[in-house]
């Protein structure tokens, strides 16, 4: 079942084409990545989805034109965007607070998730007292607890060091298997996209269009060292080749 569907979405800023032609879909309980070079306009796509910007083309959610943006998406920005002045507990309830959930009820809803997110005992800490990985998990907790239809993750591990990033990717894959969120991830990390996704849309450099849609047939749980690792490696090489040797664009081969 398709939840999100974009058809020929375009966006220009002051005459500069950022998104040339984006058509994609995300099914229920599917983890989809958008992979593209830096500055390709990936984040612009999220701005269109959350309603911060308006573009051309059609966007549908559950078959209906997308109008009430806030209702469908829970957005996790590039940096964790935790508020330094709020304790972790109050940071994670922020989305519920904006939705108008009473403080006590909101706290009860997040409290049960702290252990699962590896944050038990840190409820009363300020963000500055946490490590980068913990901050990202707190940011993800704040995102998922909103219980929207779909998660939008904008390079959530981009600011982490390589080791923490690898640990977070494994952790996220494991969490996703338990919860089966419908998720759209923006990344420029090929390995991250292959490791986490069911499908990958590869974007061209700006102006961005979808140059390839790739299904990732690897079994879950994903194992970075197991038998499927070789298959993953081949897939990564193939994607890297598409990104590094872009074919000149030759019109639409849509449908």
């Amino acid at each position, binding site marked *: 079942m398709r939840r999100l569907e974009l058809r020929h979405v375009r966006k220009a800023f002051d005459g500069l084409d950022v998104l040339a032609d984006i058509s994609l879909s995300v099914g229920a309980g599917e983890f989809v990545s958008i992979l593209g070079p830096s500055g390709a306009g990936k984040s612009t796509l999220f*701005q269109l989805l*959350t*309603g*911060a910007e308006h573009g051309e083309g059609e966007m549908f959610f559950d078959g209906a034109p997308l109008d009430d*943006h*806030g*209702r469908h*998406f*829970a*957005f*996790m*920005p*590039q*940096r964790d*965007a935790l*508020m*330094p*002045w*709020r304790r972790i507990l109050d940071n994670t309830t*922020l*989305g519920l*607070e*904006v*939705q108008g959930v009473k403080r006590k009820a909101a706290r009860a809803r997040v409290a049960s998730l702290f252990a699962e997110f*590896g944050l038990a005992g*840190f409820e009363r*800490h*300020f*963000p*500055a*007292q*946490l*490590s980068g*990985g*913990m901050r990202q998990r707190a940011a993800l907790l704040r995102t998922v607890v*909103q219980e929207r239809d779909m998660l*939008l993750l904008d390079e959530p591990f981009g600011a982490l060091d390589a080791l923490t990033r690898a*640990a977070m990717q494994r952790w996220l894959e494991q969490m996703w298997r338990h919860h089966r969120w419908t998720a759209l991830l923006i990344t420029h990390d090929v390995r991250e996209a292959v490791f986490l996704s069911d499908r990958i849309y590869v974007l061209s450099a700006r102006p961005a269009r979808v140059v390839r849609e790739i299904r990732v047939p690897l079994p879950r749980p994903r194992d970075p060292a197991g038998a499927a690792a070789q298959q993953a490696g081949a897939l990564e090489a193939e994607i890297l080749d598409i990104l590094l040797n872009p074919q000149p664009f030759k019109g639409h081969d849509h449908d």
Partner: protein
Amino acid sequence: MPVVSPVAPRPLSASLAKAVPAIISVGLLAVAWQLYATYSGIKPTILPAPSRVLEQAMLNRDALIDNAVPTIRATLAGFACSLAAAFALSMLVDFFQPMRRALFPVFIVSQTLPLVAIAPLVVLWFGFGLAPKIMLVALVTFFPMLVALVQGYEATEVEIGQMLRAMGAGRWRVFVVARLPSALPYFFAGLRISITYAVVGAIFAEYAGAAKGLGIYMLNAKNNFRPDLVLAAVGVSATLTLVLFGLTVLLQRLAMPWERAGQQRAGKVPRQ
């Protein structure tokens, strides 16, 4: 994952130890002054020794306190007005950006007015009461705080704003939840600058004309060739400023507990 444990707050003795260099330098300065005034043969009506200033301050303490009270009152009332005005206008400017272009030039011009010229005029227009003092204190303290607040709102992390809007928050909610707290460090920086101007502003206003106050006390002492009493009053006003400054630092600590929490993590590696 690294485990972060709360670090015990810095003991009081460490804070006192940090004050030692300041105490020594001030002490040396006083000693040098004392020696010069005693042995150079300079007349006490030109440069009184610190011991004489202190002695006269004690003898005249009732008069000093009596005159400090109106100054404190003018400072606090003026500062409160200034704070309220800066806060209200900063919000106006934040919500309606064109207001900034309309208002800021006026405020900048207000900062170029020489107090020496303005103070007597304000007293001439509004009399010897509290009103002109409040106005002058507000005039000198208002702008630094307004600028600090407006800058502080704009320092809000872009991603926090994006995220809140994606959550469905309106402008007012974004202001209260994100922009206002983001401005706090800037606000306190502005407050610290303003508070040091505030007492000086009040004294200037009194100098231009008042029934009572440290400013008029200084003027009278000077006219009576009593530099010791002028300096005693200066000492009182300096103490007043330091106390107010200390209060803002204390207030900041209370209002921004996360700042110290962050330092604790950042300062986990012991510095020798």
